[in-house]
């Protein structure tokens, strides 16, 4: 292809050096590139780490007894639950749950105390709004122990029973039966942060040259499109790696998220993902007339990446057309790869297909960018 001929390493290096100097002098942008990962991680991490308390709870009690009372009071003192109301019917409670008035509904069946005394392990139903699993996770984890230790106090001495066998707690998750683990978020965030900063910053880097007129200088020299494009991409690859390291480091120190797979493999595949996003940025900048347009087009790319990649919503739950779009986006494939490596210790063959998709995207975008790159001002 004609666009690849006559590549001069010296000219390429000239562009790289220039970009580094500009990056160094533009403290604001640099601070953002470092700041965004930290801020996002801390914000998302706060959500992950949050241990919400005093969640509104409704009680449906068909069996008023000392036992139910001591369970309820134990729940109160645990601080996870805030007993909002005692309601009479199951239906009423379900409505409250649907309207988000309460997060939990705890139902005591009619013969609760009788069965309990007989040692028949009565059922205790805990319904919960699991739309946001992070909200309820801690409370759910706590409930079993809570109930048992409360009852143990009532069954002292001769009444003493083996632990964990007094009641059968049934947990019914409404609205989100498939619980998404919070741990999904950090690896996903890695991809989102890279997409965001890489695309935005490179798309601006070239349009800024057009707006300031420096493009005219570049174009009047013998520098080739491929040299400009790669020269602009390379410094930001480094920035991308700094961001990855930062996020992984913070994930480890703040949230104890370990990398189960090969970190080297992660860094290697990240190269393709970063480059793909940078190529998107450069290509956008060849299309955009000014910096505002570049930002708009970057958003246009970023939003589907955020929404359809499986970061926001479970990929398998999306309609087919959305999956089609998602499959084009590099973030979709990178998420699978990065979650695979970090969470499940996946090796290369586990995600070779996704890696291929990522590479095809990269090559396609670079070619589009080079074809779109104007060697003239018109």
């Amino acid at each position, binding site marked *: 292809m004609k666009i690849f001929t006559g590549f001069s390493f010296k000219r390429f290096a*000239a562009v790289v050096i220039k970009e580094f100097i500009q990056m160094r002098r533009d403290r604001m942008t640099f601070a953002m590139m470092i700041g965004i990962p930290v801020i996002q991680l801390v914000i998302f991490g706060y959500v992950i780490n949050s241990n919400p308390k005093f969640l509104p709870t409704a009680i449906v009690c068909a069996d008023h007894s000392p036992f139910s009372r001591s369970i309820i009071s134990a729940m109160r003192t645990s601080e996870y639950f805030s007993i909002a109301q005692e309601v009479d019917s199951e239906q009423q409670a379900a409505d409250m749950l649907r309207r988000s008035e309460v997060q939990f509904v705890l139902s005591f069946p009619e013969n609760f105390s009788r069965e309990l005394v007989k040692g028949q392990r009565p059922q205790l139903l805990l319904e919960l709004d699991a739309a946001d699993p992070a909200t309820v996770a801690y409370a759910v984890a706590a409930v079993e122990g809570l109930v048992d230790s409360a009852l143990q106090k009532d069954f002292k001495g001769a009444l003493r029973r083996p632990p964990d066998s007094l009641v059968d707690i049934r947990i019914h998750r409404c609205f989100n039966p498939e619980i998404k683990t919070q741990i999904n978020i950090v690896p996903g965030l890695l991809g989102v942060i890279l997409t965001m900063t890489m695309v935005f910053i490179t798309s601006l880097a070239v349009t800024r040259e057009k707006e300031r007129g420096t493009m005219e200088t570049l174009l009047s020299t013998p520098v080739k499109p491929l040299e400009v494009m790669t020269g602009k991409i390379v410094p930001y690859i480094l920035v991308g790696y700094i961001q990855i390291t930062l996020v992984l480091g913070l994930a480890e120190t703040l949230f104890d998220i370990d990398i189960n797979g090969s970190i080297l493999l992660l860094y290697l595949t990240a190269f393709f993902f970063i480059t793909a996003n940078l190529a998107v940025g450069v290509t956008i900048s060849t299309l955009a007339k000014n910096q505002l347009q570049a930002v708009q087009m970057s958003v246009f790319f970023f939003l589907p990446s955020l929404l359809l990649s499986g970061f926001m919503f479970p990929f398998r739950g999306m309609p087919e057309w959305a999956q089609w779009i998602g499959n084009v986006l590099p973030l979709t494939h990178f998420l699978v790869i990065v979650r695979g490596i970090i969470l499940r210790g996946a090796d290369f063959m586990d995600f070779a297909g996704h890696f291929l998709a990522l590479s095809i995207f990269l090559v396609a975008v670079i070619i589009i960018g080079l074809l779109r790159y104007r060697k003239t001002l018109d």
Partner: protein
Amino acid sequence: MPGKMNSEPTAGTVKTDFAIDVSNVTKSFSGKVVVNSLSMQVKKGEIYGFLGPNGSGKTTFIRILCGLLTPDSASGTCLGLDILKEQDAIKRRVGYMTQRFSLYEELTVTENIELIARLYNVPERKKAVREIIETTGFGGREKQLAGTLSGGWKQRLSLAACLVHKPELLLLDEPTAGVDPKARRDFWEEIHNFANAGITTLVSTHYMDEAERCHRLAYIAYGDLLAKGTIQEVVDGSGLSTWIVTGGNLGALSVELRKSGTIEQIVVFGDSLHLTGSDPEQLEKAIEPYRSRPDYYWKRSRSGIEDVFIYLTEKKARDNY
């Protein structure tokens, strides 16, 4: 390098004497013709002035010459290279100084020149950069950010940057806009030194004194070439005659003359009035009634280049509408 031309030879061998030899250059932006079938021949080692009112198409034409804009149609050569097919080779041998400052403001003087030197693969780069910094007077300012230079120094830096690869042809787009008189004089001295060394310069300008320092010039308006040649040729070719009036109340006189509507062109200078017309007899007749007035001193004079340019532009404007 006439022997190395690999495009089909253009008619005649004389053409290799030209650094720029283009014809029928036309360019339009969204249907509006901005450069209209322009031709230009510039000899090697010549300083060629390029004049014309704002928006007349000078910058556009220069950009076409160095391959930054694709013309609608054009033919010819630049340094013996086909302007349509060999743009890459042309770029390597041309130094283009943009009208608007277009180096990197966040890079220092040295970094900017180094960048350009690298992009041209200048041999012995460090030495070349050092040299250009010395000769253009940037010694001691090497580490200053280009964005913090004053306007005139920015112009000088642009010039330095376009000289670092030792081009054979300089395309300078209003290089002295905003430059002080002393620096302007130095600048022109330098251009003449380049010319003596065989470097060709095409320079656009709005200053008449600079026009007079060019060997030859072209004048365009509304994309059309209106005149070209030496100043003498342009003035003679215009067939204009001019009367200069001094003394008395020139302001009042000019108002009166304008009202009478018999004189084609009246231009007020600080201490004189230039009356210009295409027909000497008609002009003489028109001023006859006023000549007897006291205080005023009337003198027939050769038309100045400025009178000619203004006349040509206004005539062109009248013809267009």
